[in-house]
């Protein structure tokens, strides 16, 4: 167990390094100077050269990369090119909590809704409730989050208030809890559908197993069979979904934040992308890489802890 943890922790050092190298190369191969965005005032070439020197961009790439990584390990991600005089670290620590907040709410919504929907479907297999949840899951699964976000805005901000006069939601913003509801649904719907599908099929597998038949044969109430025997075992494989789901939530938040004008990291990231703000892009991608690697490790460990049949080695 301990050696597994150590090996996994050691393994994500090369992974993160590879991620940083790939990102670094992709960003530095991008044509066009970050200091000369389209449509901006023309700088004299010698000025651009001076600014590039100031940021150390005149040095060979490997040196730049080594400098970057060395500083990044000390928590210094450099200065934003787009918003001069602002540290990338400061921008991220200001915007990340908002994205994290949205992500946690969406994940909670997805987990609770998905498990309920999946269980209801499995318990009433081939009944109307099953068809309802399966259909809802397919809908949520296939409609992209930003499209859902827009359909939600159209319905709840424009049409329903127009018909009923009840004006509850805003087009965007992140001030009050009422602003949180629509983005949470838009971001969480896809993961909810995946959890629901997975829970349903996992439940159906377990319902057919021998120990469930035994539990029923000894006269346990159906409710108890489902909760104590089926659900407990059926949810174990669902835990493994967390890794890919977190990745989906992280990238999904770029677009949902864009639609609802939420001042989170995703919205900043898209802006940095357009402005070729290299330090911002690098820091955000690295942050996601590290975050996802840690979460995947935690999920693996949790999986081993929940299911005694699994030996981690």
């Amino acid at each position, binding site marked *: 167990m301990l050696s597994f943890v150590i090996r996994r922790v050691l393994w994500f050092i090369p992974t993160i390094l590879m991620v940083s190298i790939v990102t670094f190369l992709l960003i530095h191969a991008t044509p066009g100077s970050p200091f000369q965005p389209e449509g901006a005032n023309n700088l004299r070439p010698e000025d651009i050269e001076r600014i590039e020197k100031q940021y150390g961009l005149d040095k060979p790439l490997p040196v730049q990369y080594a400098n970057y990584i060395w500083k990044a390990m000390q928590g210094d991600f450099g200065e934003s090119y787009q918003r001069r005089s602002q540290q990338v670290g400061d921008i991220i620590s200001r915007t990340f909590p908002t994205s994290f907040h949205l992500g946690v709410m969406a994940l909670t919504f997805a987990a609770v809704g998905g498990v309920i929907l999946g269980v209801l479907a499995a318990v009433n297999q081939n009944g109307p409730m099953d068809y309802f949840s399966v259909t809802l899951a397919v809908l949520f699964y296939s409609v992209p989050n930003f499209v859902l976000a827009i359909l939600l805005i*159209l319905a709840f901000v424009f049409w329903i208030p127009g018909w009923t006069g009840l004006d509850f939601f805003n087009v965007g913003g992140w001030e009050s809890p009422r602003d949180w509801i629509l983005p949470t649904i838009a971001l969480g719907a896809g993961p909810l559908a995946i959890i629901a599908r997975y829970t349903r099929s996992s439940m159906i597998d377990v319902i057919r197993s021998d120990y469930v038949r035994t539990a029923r044969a000894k006269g346990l109430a159906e409710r108890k069979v489902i909760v104590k025997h089926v659900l407990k075992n059926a949810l174990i494989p669902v835990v493994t979904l967390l890794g890919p789901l977190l990745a989906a939530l992280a990238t999904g938040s770029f677009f949902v934040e864009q639609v609802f004008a939420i001042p989170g990291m995703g919205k900043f990231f898209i802006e940095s992308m357009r402005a070729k703000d290299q330090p911002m892009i690098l820091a955000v991608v690295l942050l996601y890489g590290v975050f996802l690697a840690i979460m995947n490790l935690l999920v693996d460990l949790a999986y081993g802890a929940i299911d005694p049949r699994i030996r981690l080695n």
Partner: protein
Amino acid sequence: MATSERNEQVSQAQLLAEAAEAAPSRQASLWGDAWRRLIRNRLAVIGMVIVVMLVLLAVFAPLLAPYGEGEVIHESLVLAKPSWYFPMGVDQNGRDVFSRMLYGARVSLLVGVVAQLIVLAIALPVGSVAGYFGGRVDNYLMRAVDVVYAIPQLLLVLLIVNLRGPGIANIFLAIGLTGWVTMARLIRGQMLMIREQEYVKASRVAGAGPLYIIVRHMLPNSMTPIIVALTFGIPVAIFIEAALSFVGVGIRPPQASWGQMVGIGQQYIRSVQHLMLFPSLAIALTMLAFTFLGDGLRDALDVRLND
């Protein structure tokens, strides 16, 4: 004695002939059975009908569209609401939304199909070789998988498109370059499984080379999961293009794309809503149709994908 021997030979020959006749028809019935199961699935048929209609609309877009893709009809019509003459209204530049929707279907379907072809072109050789030979090739593949999996696909696509610039060719490339890993892993897994089958061993013993075995035995027998994975890959590619164009780094105007139309429509949301409504519905419907079709194919071909 001689006659009975001859009879035996005749009956053997007959059996062989019957078997030879039966063989192709049995193979046809594998796909025939799958087809029958597919068309019995109501949702799959709905998905198929929508996909076929989309393909027709996309192919015949220039004939069906009342106006050109970037044609500005008249300045006075800017942001006009849907009407008899402009069934989906007019956009912020005075272009007919309905015509742009038709041209947008071309982009979506083209991205879906071409990106999957690129994925297949990379994944097929890599996955086959890794699965058949194992060893070092396999190790390299799995390490590449680790790195690519550490970055979410959409993030990687954003970086590549940012590097190469907007435009449909770069979107093909970005989705293909980031999407092949999953497919290669699937093919590798199939190959690993089939490699140990008796008929492959028999073929190897009979002197068949790796290329022959891969092409003649292993690929045909891993067709079904590949087909299903490709079908599921199409909506993913369509989604990525829409998302890129939505935030303004994908397809640039005057070329039309549904995602881009939604993104531009969003800027006018407080005054008019039809600009975003129609492309949003089109994206949702297309994704839904491919998911229905993919689900139906998976059930009809009886494939278990480890998702």
